[in-house]
């Protein structure tokens, strides 16, 4: 599949999930993005479950806030001091599903490398700098995570038992590691940009493409499905259910 198609699907899912209100449709979009994350991002997708579980407190608090403060007509529960409305519950669910959809569909792009963005963006005539920047931004968080894990492993191998450190020392250690990891990544990305320029990145003149990647039958199919689904979803009368 052409990398542009995947990017288009991710953009389509995220923007649609922001426009659509119907919980059923939102649920459908979430399922598509979860499947994409699992099948397209390899082991990063396998850890998606963990990631979402870690975010559970955030989801729950957003949901509770919506439920408590959203005023609505139909009351599901009325204790006088606390009134839970139907629209509050629905709005809470909506926000949580949207959030999860965006996280899942973004992680489907983690396996796309610089070359994929280069191919995708040159197909719609966007400059190469944008491909580099987008790919850099997408990979920043996973890279940060990996390097931080690596640093912790190095510290453990020095005979430091992180778990049994004093609370103050632990904070100190995490602070030092975070700053060092960030500095390392920033300096590395600077050097990478230099290294690319030394091979003609952004240079004057029209580059040739040795491996032509054309939009194939599968890609067209995906685009048609996206268009048809958009028409059905947006054409339908919008309601919560």
């Amino acid at each position, binding site marked *: 599949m052409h990398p542009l198609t995947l990017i288009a699907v991710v953009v389509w899912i995220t923007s649609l999930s922001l426009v659509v209100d119907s919980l059923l449709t939102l649920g459908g979009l979430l399922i598509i993005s979860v499947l994409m994350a699992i099948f397209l991002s390899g082991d990063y997708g396998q850890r998606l479950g963990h990631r979402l579980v870690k975010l559970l407190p955030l989801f729950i608090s957003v949901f509770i806030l919506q439920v408590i403060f959203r005023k609505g007509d139909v009351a599901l529960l009325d204790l006088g001091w606390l009134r839970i409305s139907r629209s509050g519950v629905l709005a809470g669910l909506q926000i949580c599903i949207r959030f999860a959809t965006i996280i899942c569909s973004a992680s489907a792009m983690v396996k796309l490398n610089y070359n994929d963005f280069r191919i995708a963006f040159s197909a719609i005539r966007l400059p190469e700098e944008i491909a580099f920047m987008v790919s850099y931004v997408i990979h920043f968080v996973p890279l940060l995570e990996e390097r931080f894990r*690596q*640093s912790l*492993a*190095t*510290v*453990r*191998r*020095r*005979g*430091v*038992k992180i778990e*049994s*450190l004093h609370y103050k*020392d632990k904070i100190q*250690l995490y602070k*030092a*590691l975070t*700053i*060092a990891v960030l*500095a*390392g990544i*920033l*300096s*590395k990305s600077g050097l990478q940009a230099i290294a690319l320029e030394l091979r003609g990145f952004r240079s004057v003149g029209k580059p040739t493409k040795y491996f032509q990647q054309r939009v194939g039958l599968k890609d067209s199919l995906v685009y048609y499905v996206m268009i048809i689904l958009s028409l059905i979803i947006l054409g339908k009368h919008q309601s919560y259910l």
Partner: protein
Amino acid sequence: MIVIRDMSYSWGQDKPLFEHLDITISANKSILLTGDNGAGKSTLLRLIIGALQPNSGSITYNEIDTYRPQCPLFAEAFYLSQNTTENLVGISPFEDLSIWLMAQPPIVERHELEPLLDSFGVADLAHQPIAHLSTGEKRLVSLCMLPQLMHKYWILDEPFAGLDAINRKRLLELIIAKQKLHRGLILVSHDVDTLTHLMDETWEIRDRSLSRSL
């Protein structure tokens, strides 16, 4: 003592790097590990320290698999990666060394840190950002702690890479001193000529297994 039993390992779907490897690494021997580029020298070291898990068979220290977090290998051993960035975790060389102060049991005290940087001639880099150092300088900083770790078993991946003559000599002297103390080490290097005579054994990785020569 690290025991490798019937161990096989491959990267993903690639053909295996090791098949049914059986070997015991004793704590007081010095071993030179050699082999072609891509033969699996670094991978073997990473398997030994438990950063990777064998596909089958086992690698144990004190009868505990080294990849398990509770394995006490690093109370007794020290590992240096070939990748200098991975070895350093501080913002400056001094700060990086300070992290050793948290080790249990204690290995070094604060006033000993600055002089340690002198052991590989990088004292004047103590407060420079590590990100600005050359690869050679990063390697030197990562070696500075070695004089304090003579009691540990060393697992060193290409420690000589990028070192100039003076610093090569410094590292060689440390290795000789260590051998006099009968403390072991395993190191990967391509400087076969110099090191073969010095080390107790040379192991060569070839065709997915190890051949040993004394």
